[in-house]
């Protein structure tokens, strides 16, 4: 009983003002059940400059039931799982209202990037870091944005290249750089 006409209309609406909001929604394949949403990282946050992809699944009861959303771009954020991309956001759960749309939901997700709520975490590790060591959190989030949310991540590739040339295995280099937020000195310490 999916109301495809409403999804259809929403897609049209989104396309109209995509330039303004930067938010895009497009079908993943030829059906309207699986969609891809795209949001730009908000300015003034560690996510600035990144473009984040969100996988959207439209449930049977849509719009009376909330759409399912999760990040496919890796992101370092207290309310988003660094493993699975699952999002902890009330309007995607019990605070959903049929009057909300995919676009308004994506705007809320974007707002969540600007204003993390570490007290209601999806990722406990990130939330701990956010609360106890804010600077490291910012560095890691920025590095993850650099590594995963940017189409050209020249800086990252350069660092990886450098360590590989020093003789370290590439996979290990990448995972350690992610863990230390791109800090070359820390990465070297750990590699040694």
């Amino acid at each position, binding site marked *: 009983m999916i109301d495809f*006409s*409403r999804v259809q*209309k929403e897609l049209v609406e989104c396309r109209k003002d995509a330039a303004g909001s930067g938010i895009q929604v497009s079908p993943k394949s030829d059906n309207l059940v699986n969609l891809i949403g795209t949001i730009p990282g908000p300015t003034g946050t560690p996510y600035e400059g990144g473009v984040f992809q969100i996988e959207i699944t439209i449930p049977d*009861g849509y*719009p*009376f039931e909330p759409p399912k959303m999760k990040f496919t771009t890796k992101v370092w954020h207290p309310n988003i799982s660094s493993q699975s991309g699952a999002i902890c956001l009330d309007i995607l759960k019990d605070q959903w*209202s049929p*009057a*909300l749309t995919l676009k308004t939901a994506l705007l809320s997700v974007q707002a969540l990037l600007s204003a993390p709520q570490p007290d209601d975490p999806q990722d406990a590790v990130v939330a701990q870091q956010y609360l106890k060591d804010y600077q490291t959190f910012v560095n890691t989030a920025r590095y993850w944005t650099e590594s995963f949310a940017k189409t050209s991540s020249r800086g990252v590739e350069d660092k990886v290249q450098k360590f590989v040339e020093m003789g370290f295995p590439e996979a290990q280099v990448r995972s350690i750089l992610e863990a230390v937020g791109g800090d070359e000195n820390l990465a070297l310490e750990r590699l040694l």
Partner: protein
Amino acid sequence: MEDYGSSDDDYRYSDQEESDCELYENNDQNFELLSSTAQVITEESLLAAQKEDLRRVMDMLSVRQHHARTLLIYHRWDVDHLFEVYVEKGKAYMFSQAGVSVDEYRDSNSLVSASVMCEICMDDIPSDEATRVDCGHCFCNSCWTQHFIVKINEGQSKRIRCMAHKCNSICDEAVVRTLLGRKHPDMAEKYERFLLESYIEDNKRVKWCPSTPHCGNAIRVEGDKLCEVECSCGDQFCFNCLSEAHSPCSCLMWELWEKKCRDESETVNWITVHTKTCPKCHKPVEKNGGCNLVSCICGQAFCWLCGGATGREHTWSSIAGHSCGRYKEQEKTAERAKRDLYRYMHYHNRYKAHTDSFKLESKLKDSIRGRISISEETKSSELSDYSWVHNGLSRLFRSRRVLSYSYAFAFYMFGDELFKEEMSEAEREIKQNLFEDQQQQFESNVEKLSKMLEEPFDTFEYDKVMEIRMQIIDLTTLIDGLCKKMYECIENDLLGSINLGTIHSIAPYRSKGIEKASELQVCWSNKANNTGKSTINSIAPYIDCSTSVVIAVTQHIFYDHVGFLIYKLICLVNIVVC
């Protein structure tokens, strides 16, 4: 206590089980004025029961029924609390908190244009196919309908919010009913049922009867919720914790006791851990002394640690002719466990003895009834009146229950589990003596009554019958008084002095036994009919059913009935001193 000696004309005989025995004592209405009155809410009376509360709120606040219901559901059907909030915080606050929007938009802002844009389906809809709700939000009927279905299936019937984002307003039940009724009568029915059952499930004063299979009734209690009630299906239970009626145990004590009795391991493990089979005669032998050489009554000595037969010579660290190398042990825990187990066995045995007597006496009751029903027909009027026997029997059954529970009570009252920190050793001893004094007096008189009731008085001569009649009447009265005194001792001297709040409060003593919940009456239907119905198998005129009314409760079983105790055999153990 004047009831027992008075003219017996008021007593009539009923054919029901022993739990109904209080029916004979209907003339002592003034004897106990207890605060709680229980009423049975049946499928038929559920609607009426909640209408009463709805009506009060509608009258008081001049609101329509669906608003009253929204308010009541929000405040868990606690009318008094609702009025308190109203007085303290005001109407506006109370309404917005509960999600009530009063009809500001209705009519005044009625739909003028021919069509409206529904924000949900994003279609233009003729205005007669759209519905505006109390908060002013307007969407098309088909979107509303789907929204209702989704919410009902999610189990949120009681509070279906408006579809607009961040609108806290609860949808008018009439709108839900009307829109669903058009195409989805099954959902409308489901919605209706959830609304009705909210009165039971969200209501502190009302609980489903815990009987299995479920009788379909709920019980409403006015006043103190710590009480014991009997449903019209015959199930007797503690309204507070929903297990069987267990006073003078507190709910917590009873919960612990039941668990303890059910927990086979308590005893069995102890026996496996603390006894060993003799290598010669294979009887279990308990180690009762300090060292690890034990000897069985058959004369065989063996090593406690490996079970191997040994010679009898030993020191603290070795046994002659034996060297398994495990000859050391921690004494204290074993001794303690043993002491605890014996303590438990002491109370459990007495607890069980009274429960067993209760069962035996229930059989006795049948034979007595058989005997006296014959003499009732054959003898003269004075002799054929056996109400004193019925009264004696009902007092006996009630007392047996109390006696058996009183041992569970004593187990916790004077044990370490609950009140270790609350009393000094000396204090405890004084209290225990005080209590046991009363318990023993009560107990010995109950046994006396039991014995007397076994007499074949139907075969006695007139004088002898009159004599035993007087004795039984006196004893019955005495026992009632003793039982009451024991309850008072528990409430005031024992539990009353322990400052732990109400967690250990007990249901008050009722001379007449557990209160039978009265049938809720449907005011506007014929009252006469109802009264007639209740006399089919009971007399119960002391139940002054008065007020209220009601609809259908479906057969959900909401509570797993806590089964009766599993009794255990305490194994026999040969105790042998080393």
